C-alpha cells in the first residue's frame, strides 16, 4: 500500500555537522525506512528518520538541504512510509557502525536494545559529534581516519597502526563478536570489505546478523523507475539477483551485497 500524506514542517536548527528538521506526520517511517518528500526540484527526496515519535519524526540533513529552508508550518507532500528498515526484534546486544555522513538513519536505534554499541568514523576530529549528544548507556567508539581523535581508521584497515595510534580493527572485531545484530550505514563501496570482517569475526553469521543501509538515489520509491536496482547474491535460502532498494531495501543483509 503506497500512500501519500501531508507532513507539516515544524522547525530546523543546526546540530553540527548536521541540521535537524522536524516534521509532524500521521504515519512516520520505521528506523531505516523512509518517506519521499516533494521539496521542489525535479525529483522527490528520501527522508530517513533520526528520531521517531507518535506525532512525527526528525531528520538530520546536510546544512544546505532544501528542507532546512522551509518555513515553519509549511505542508510537504510525502510518499510513504516506504521500504524495509532494520530488523532488530528481540535483539539484546546491538552494534551500530556508521561513517559520520550516513549516521542519521541509525540514530533511531540508539535505545532500541538493552545494550547498544556505536562506532562512528569521521575523516578528522572536527567532524565528530560531541559524545554527550548520545544516551549515556550507549557504548561509544570514535574513529578518525587521520587518528586525530579516538581510534585510527578506516574501519576496514588491517594494517598495523603507526606509533602512538591504535587501529579500530581489533575493537571492531570484538564488538562484532559481542553483538547479536550489527547495523551498518556507510558508503556502499565499503560494504564488501566490512562483510569480509564480519565473516572473519563470526562463524556462520545468521541471516540478517549484519544489515546494511544501501545508499542509492530512489526517484520513485515504488519500484517503477528501476534507478535503485541493487545486486544481491543468492544463498541456499534466498534467490539473489537485482533487488529494488526502494521496496526490498534499502536495508539489506550485508553479507548478500
Amino acid at each position: 500500500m503506497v500512500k501519500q500524506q501531508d507532513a507539516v514542517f515544524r522547525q530546523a536548527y543546526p546540530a553540527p555537522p548536521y541540521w535537524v528538521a522536524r516534521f509532524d506526520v500521521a504515519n512516520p517511517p520505521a528506523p531505516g525506512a523512509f518517506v519521499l518528500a516533494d521539496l521542489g526540484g525535479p525529483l522527490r527526496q528520501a527522508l530517513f528518520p533520526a528520531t521517531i515519535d507518535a506525532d512525527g519524526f526528525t531528520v538530520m540533513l546536510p546544512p544546505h538541504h532544501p528542507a532546512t529552508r522551509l518555513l515553519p508550518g509549511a505542508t510537504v507532500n510525502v510518499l510513504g512510509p516506504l521500504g524495509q528498515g532494520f530488523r532488530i526484534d528481540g535483539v539484546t546486544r546491538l552494534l551500530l557502525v556508521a561513517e559520520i555522513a550516513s549516521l542519521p538513519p541509525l540514530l533511531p536505534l540508539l535505545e532500541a536494545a538493552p545494550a547498544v554499541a556505536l562506532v562512528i568514523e569521521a575523516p578528522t576530529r572536527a567532524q565528530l559529534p560531541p559524545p554527550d549528544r548520545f544516551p549515556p548507556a550507549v557504548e561509544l567508539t570514535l574513529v578518525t581516519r587521520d587518528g586525530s581523535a579516538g581510534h585510527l581508521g578506516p574501519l576496514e584497515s588491517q594494517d598495523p597502526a603507526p606509533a602512538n595510534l591504535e587501529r579500530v580493527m581489533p575493537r571492531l572485531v570484538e564488538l562484532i563478536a559481542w553483538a547479536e545484530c550489527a547495523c551498518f550505514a556507510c558508503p556502499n563501496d565499503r560494504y564488501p570489505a566490512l562483510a569480509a570482517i564480519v565473516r572473519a569475526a563470526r562463524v556462520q553469521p545468521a541471516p540478517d546478523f549484519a544489515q546494511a543501509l544501501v545508499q542509492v538515489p530512489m526517484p520513485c520509491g515504488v519500484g517503477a523507475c528501476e534507478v535503485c536496482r541493487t545486486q544481491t547474491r543468492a544463498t541456499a535460502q534466498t534467490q539473489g539477483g537485482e533487488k529494488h532498494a526502494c521496496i526490498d531495501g534499502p536495508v539489506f543483509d550485508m553479507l548478500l551485497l
Partner: protein
Amino acid sequence: MIELAPRHKFGLPIASPVMPAAGAFGYGDTYHDLVDLRVLGALVTNPMSLTPREAARGRRIAIHGEHFVAHTGLPNPGVRRVLQQYRQTWERLPIPVIVHLIATTPAETAQAAERLSGVPNVVGIELGVVDNVTPQRALNLLDAARADGDLPVIVRVPFTGVDALAPLLADHGADALTLTAPPRAVLPASDAPEDSEARRYLRGRLYGPALFPLLLNVLARWCSKLPVPVIACGGIASLQDATACLELGATALQVDALLWRDPLILQRIAEGLAKFETSTISE
C-alpha cells in the same frame, strides 16, 4: 473511443488519450493504490527485452536544476519472466496494456513480438530503438516486430531522429508513432579529478520541463504531415500542456518522469480532458 491504430486489422481503441510513458510506471500494479487506472487510456509497461538485462553499473542519475539525466540500462528480467509475473495482473487490469519492447536485434524483436501476441489484454507493442539507429535498421526492426505477431506496433522515435525516421516508419507500416523518446544528454557525475572521464560524466536521457517546448515544435512540424496517429511525450506537466499537444495534432499523450514526483498528475490530466470533452460535446 480514440483509435491509435486505424490501419491495423484489429485497431487499438483507447477510452482516454492519457497514458504513462514506458519506464515511468512499472509493469502494471505499482501505482494502483494511488492512481485510479480506469481514467487512463492504457498502461504502457516498463521496457522489456527478449533476454534479461541487468542495471547499468555506477551512477544512474544526475540532477541539473529542474532537469535530470537518467541512465538505468533498461534492466528487466526478459519477456518470458515478465509474462510469468504479470500475465494475471494484466488480465485483471481495467485498461488495455501496451508492452514497451526494447528492439535489440530483428531476430530477438520478432521472437519477443510473437510471444506477446495473444497474451490476454495486451493490445499493442511500443518499440524502443537505440538513438543512433539508421533508417534501414529501424525499418528492419519494425518489420520484425510485425512479422509473426498480430499486434499493432507503435514506434517510439528518438528525439534527434524524428526528421529521418518518422515519415519513413509511418509509410512503412508503423501503426502509430510516439514522439519522442527523451534526448541523450551528459552531466558531470563526480568532481573527483582522478576519476576517468567516463566515470566523471553520466550519459543518459534528459527529463524535465524544457522538453515540452521541444515536443511542441516536433508536433507542430510533424503531426499534420504523418499518415498515422502521434502519441506526444516529453515534459508534459499539466492539463494545459496536454491540451496544447492535442491541439497541435497529437492523438494521445504520455506522461513520464514527472509522475514519480506527482503520481496524481495522470488522473488530473485525464479527468480534465474528459470534462473538457463532455462540455464541448454538450454545447
